[in-house]
């Protein structure tokens, strides 16, 4: 019985994945946008870096991070943050889309838990952002002197997976929150800037003692420090074990909290009578 149930839920995840992909591909202009996005994404960082330090490398920067390659530092941050922000926009916003389409009530009225739908959306989002990041990685490798070897890629992949598991837990709670607040864009933008400020996406957080302290609470910080260590400083084994343990611990906390918050918020919207409202 339990295995049949699991089988049914897996098929729903598959159906949601197919549905999401079909809807995305029904907008040809979006495909065009995403095809040129990896190139558009990289240029502002390149120009900003050159304007600041005159070239791609800086001695002051080396003293803070161990690597003088500012551009590679920022591009890795931007690449990993693509995953994180696509989870926020894609998964966090996805149930709001369902309410706009008028289909949310039909999902909730079915025997399938909306969390299963969110897993399907997560899978679609993960696939999509993986393709984007792959292109970004290709650009970094070809033009910015970052070498990808299997010895580097495997631990980086492990870190990315661990980072995203926790982050999807956060995004699921956020999706529940959007059912209640009926507004997404302002919140996602705010969260984006919180992450930009308190994690080393664009700059080393050590430049300010407060950002350095707060950044320890964000899994993205731990993942980025370790990934840059591996990619830029060839520290394959350094701190990897410690980072994996910290990220796994954060994953458990974020997934459990995300699940219970979502269940609570979904029930609250049914109690308040605001399921179909937008």
């Amino acid at each position, binding site marked *: 019985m339990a295995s049949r149930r699991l089988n049914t839920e897996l098929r729903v995840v598959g159906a949601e994945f197919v549905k999401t992909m*079909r809807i995305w591909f*029904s*907008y040809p202009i979006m495909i065009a946008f995403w095809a040129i996005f990896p190139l558009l994404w990289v240029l502002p960082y390149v120009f900003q870096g050159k304007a600041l330090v005159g070239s791609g490398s800086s001695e002051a920067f080396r003293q803070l991070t161990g690597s003088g390659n500012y551009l590679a530092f920022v591009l890795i941050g931007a690449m990993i943050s693509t995953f994180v922000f696509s989870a926020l926009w894609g998964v966090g916003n996805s149930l709001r889309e369902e309410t706009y389409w*008028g289909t949310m009530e039909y*999902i909730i009225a*079915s025997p*399938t838990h909306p969390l299963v739908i969110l897993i399907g959306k997560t899978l679609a989002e993960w696939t999509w952002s993986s393709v984007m990041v792959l292109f970004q990685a290709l650009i970094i490798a070809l033009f910015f002197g970052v070498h990808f070897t299997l010895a580097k890629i495997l631990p980086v992949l492990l870190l990315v997976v661990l980072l995203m598991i926790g982050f999807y837990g956060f995004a699921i709670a956020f999706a529940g929150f959007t059912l209640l607040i009926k507004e997404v864009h302002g919140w996602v933008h705010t969260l984006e800037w919180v992450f930009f400020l308190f994690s080393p996406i664009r700059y080393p957080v050590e430049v300010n003692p407060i950002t350095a302290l707060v950044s320890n609470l964000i899994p993205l910080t731990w993942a980025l420090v370790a990934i840059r260590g591996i990619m830029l400083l060839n520290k394959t084994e350094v701190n990897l074990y410690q980072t994996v343990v910290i990220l796994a611990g954060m994953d458990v906390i974020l997934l459990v909290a995300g699940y219970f918050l979502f269940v609570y918020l979904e029930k609250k919207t049914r109690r308040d009578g605001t399921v*179909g409202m937008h």
Partner: protein
Amino acid sequence: MISQGVVPALYCENVVKLFRRGRGLKKKVIRALDNASLTLAPGELFGLLGPNGAGKTTLVRCIATLLIPDAGTIRIFGSDAFKDSLFCRQRIGLLTSGERTLYWKLSARDNLRFFAALYGLTGKKREQRIDYLLELLGLEEVANERLERYSSGMKQKVSLARAMLHDPDILLLDEPTLGLDPQFGRFIRQFIKEELNRRQKKTILLTTHYMDEADELCQRIAFINKGRIIDIKSPAQYKREIPHKEVLQVRCLGQPDTSRLQNLAGIERVQTDFNDGITTLRIVAPRAEPVLSEVIETVRAQARILGIDVKEPTLEDVFIYVTGTSLTADTGQGEE
């Protein structure tokens, strides 16, 4: 209406739903459902008739588990709708009014495939069921076209197919003909009565504020107003509620002043409906004949009479008689 020993298909007892709106001093508590109770026998086509804001949709949403009531019990074939929600949701098919309840960027077939998965239908069984429903509703030729190219009526047919996908025992049809053109409205009504109820023996809870629809389709009807179920009877029983009354229906060109008619002796009530330049007056009187000449004279002085009929009271007349509210009124919901 339910034989002893038969488990009701749907059982609602003293369902209360409060909505809390606003904050601080502006906080209001709205009693959308006020101890609403009803019982549906298996295979019954039951109507919930009331004006906008009466609580019809709120009750349907509570039954579909989209809303959690503040008090009361809802049972589907004996199972508690909230404690055993998976079982109950599997036995309910839902259709709400409005076009925006489907994915417009997907075809009818893809929409149905997705919703079928939510109910555990997959593979060949799913495809067969979808083919059957598309054919039954006359959609097979447009099944692979995106819904954004469909008319409102065609979208409503897809919604109906979705409600029937998992072959539920109970169908909750909330204003299924609202906003449809007469041709599609007729089709949907006929489909509900002949196919779903007579042939497939589905238990149907139909909400509407169209009295003709309720009168034509339903075996029993609950009048609902301000969240309260006022009465439950068959259409014929309701009409016997206002005995010794007749309705004089006058159709005329122009818009006569009805206040003069209201003041005529022997007339209890005048209801006006103006559409496409033609006014239809429904004049309720204990007997039509004694007031007929005075009515003709009064109306003819202001408008051109097209026709006069003496009719039996309709459900709308009964509804007004029982509740004092017209079905076309927007009653809002009762504040605490």
